[in-house]
């Protein structure tokens, strides 16, 4: 035991300082979570009856979910649309997705008043609730991502049998992932359809779910760009900018479609005043101009699409835009003119920072210990071997003996 501990400690000691810093942040978040459970939500967060949802829902859930959309977008692109070139990006995306969703779940458990009753959603169905829909989807999708994530794990430990099952499952999983994601990414938008008289008209319109879904797609792609670039820069992985160019080619189309839907919905489907609140208008303009129009224009030019620096810049803008959009919808746009402004408490901030840090930390650690980048899809055989059934039988027999 002590020996094992010593090994772990030595291992950790060898980490880069940045990672140690991340560990520190995660530890702080864990402590903050403990504080939340000991002292209750009211005294540790700045949430109250006016702001029943704070940073945790706005970021940890509403924003984190589209940020983890890389997996399903890329899965669909690679496997369904068969753009095999991008295969090397899939695994990191899945890992990010899996981490992202796991952390969403953790964030939710902290936020729930009765986390021990979380399983009730599985038992007491209310199909009229977008929350029900999203939680079912998130649970299902996390499972899917988990299964997908098992591949590198099995590879690492050389579990070939499950690997085969997983590979056999790959297509259905990818399709399930894409369908489920479509549902819950859009349903996050459906959340706010109930806030008819609360959410400002700049954002409120019946096409909100569609916009949420579309933005999840381009966010997913942007995250992949960001991630690949970061990994290249800081983890010494190969430069994938050539692959990323495929994405930057698709992006302006999606952004354009999104912009069209957004403007059309605003113009034709929203009721009431749009420009009555200057601060909200500014937020809206920043979101649209920086997050949508500028990257769209940028990626319309070929030289920008190819240039890794511009790829990063554009992707970052898109990500910024989506984060702002999700905050606009779930928080800023919901603040009524006469309300005091909410800002997150220390505990809330620590938890959210810890979640982001945890994400980075676990990604790096996973990359360090599992074959996430060493994966060479071109050399892998996707077909089921002829003697699959034999092996299967053998395995089962062994199981019975034992």
């Amino acid at each position, binding site marked *: 035991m002590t020996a094992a501990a010593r090994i772990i400690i030595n291992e950790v000691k060898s980490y880069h300082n940045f990672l140690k810093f991340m560990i520190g942040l995660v530890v702080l978040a864990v402590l903050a979570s403990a504080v*939340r459970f*000991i002292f*209750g*939500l*009211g*005294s540790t967060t700045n*949430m109250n*009856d006016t702001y*029943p*949802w704070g940073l945790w829902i706005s970021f940890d859930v509403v924003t984190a979910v589209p940020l983890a959309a890389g997996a399903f977008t890329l899965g669909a692109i690679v496997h*369904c*649309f*068969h753009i095999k070139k991008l295969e090397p990006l899939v695994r990191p995306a899945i890992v990010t997705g899996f981490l992202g969703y796991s952390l969403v779940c953790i964030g939710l458990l902290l*936020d*729930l*008043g*009765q*986390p021990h*009753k*979380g399983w*009730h*959603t599985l*038992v*007491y169905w*209310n*199909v*009229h*609730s*977008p*929350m*029900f*829909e999203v*939680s079912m989807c998130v649970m299902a999708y996390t499972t899917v991502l988990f299964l997908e994530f098992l591949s590198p794990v099995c590879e690492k430990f*050389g579990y*070939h049998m499950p690997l085969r099952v997983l590979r056999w499952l790959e*297509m259905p999983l*990818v*399709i*399930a992932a894409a*369908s489920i994601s*479509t*549902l819950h990414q*859009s349903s996050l938008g*459906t*959340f706010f*359809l*109930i*806030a*008819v*008289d*609360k959410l400002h008209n700049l954002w409120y319109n*019946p096409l909100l*779910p569609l916009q949420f879904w579309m933005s999840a797609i381009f966010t997913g792609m942007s995250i992949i760009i960001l991630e690949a670039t970061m990994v290249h820069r800081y983890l010494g992985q190969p430069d994938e900018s050539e692959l990323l160019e495929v994405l930057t080619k698709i992006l302006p189309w999606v952004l354009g479609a999104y912009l069209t839907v957004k403007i059309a919905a605003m113009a034709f489907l929203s009721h009431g005043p749009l420009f009555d609140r200057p601060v909200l208008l500014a937020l809206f303009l920043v979101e649209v101009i920086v997050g949508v129009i500028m990257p769209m224009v940028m990626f319309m030019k070929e030289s920008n699409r190819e240039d890794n620096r511009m790829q990063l810049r554009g992707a970052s803008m898109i990500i910024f835009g989506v984060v702002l959009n999700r905050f606009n919808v779930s928080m800023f746009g*919901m603040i009524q003119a006469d309300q005091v402004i909410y800002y997150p408490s220390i505990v809330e901030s620590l938890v959210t920072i810890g979640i982001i840090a945890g994400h980075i930390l676990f990604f790096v650690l996973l990359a360090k210990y599992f074959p996430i980048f060493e994966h060479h899809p071109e050399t892998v055989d*996707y*077909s089921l*071997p002829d*003697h699959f059934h034999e*092996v299967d039988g*053998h395995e089962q027999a062994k199981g019975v003996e034992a």
Partner: protein
Amino acid sequence: MSGNSKDFSKQRTFLIDTTKCTGCRGCQVACKQWNQLGAENTKFFSGEGYQNPPAMSEYTFTRIKFKDYQKNGQNEFAFYKEMCMHCNEPACASVCPVGAFVKTPEGPVVYNAGRCIGCRFCMIACPFGIPKYEWSKAFPLVKKCTGCYGRVKEGLQPACATTCPTAISYGSRSDMIAEAERRLKNRPKHYYPAIYGKEEAGGTSVIYLTHQPLDELGFKPVTTRPLPSYTWQALRLVPGIFLTMGGGLSLISWFNHRKERIKQEEAFKNSKVAPETAETKTREENQ
């Protein structure tokens, strides 16, 4: 939310005639007493007039709002009771992932604490800002006016309605609306010509009459469409989208993979090796 097909005319409804409300706050205290809610620790007055406590909360299911202002040199001192509207088609119930809120056939919208997971979506959804949270607790629950369902089921009136000397009438929705309309007709100059809650949020089991214009009193303008329908118009597409998406992607990938497979099978035929079999066997034996 089947909506329009439902008949709400028999549901128990509060008619709150604010022109008759004396601001005595008997209802506020009666509610606390019946529901055994704690008192808030207040200082001085928190709003206009003698208004207290500052807001509805886990301890305060109903509250009299005071309005104390002047209009054309004339004083206005108005009072109205804030409480759950017991919407015909409640937003709170529709968004609750576990169905903890239920619109009872009698009228009150009730809460099943045993089910609640504490996501607070109901609080976001309610157009009137009614559900409140036990912020002081580590594992909080939602709190709101129960419509005194326990009393109503026993044939009694809600505690606040029983206490009120003047302003609250309680009866079937159709009777209350008829009574409200009768009053409007009877004393047109006395009343602002609107019945708040008749249409708001698709109709509620609490309706108001006022003397002053609604916006002066701070009544929220609320859509007349039942709120759940806004969500449902998107949510009802879910199965369709799921099937379309899944089916579409399956088709596309089946198509793409078929091409691939044909290519691969050809390659496979050319090199008849099963590279992994031997390896697997040795590994298993070693274990």
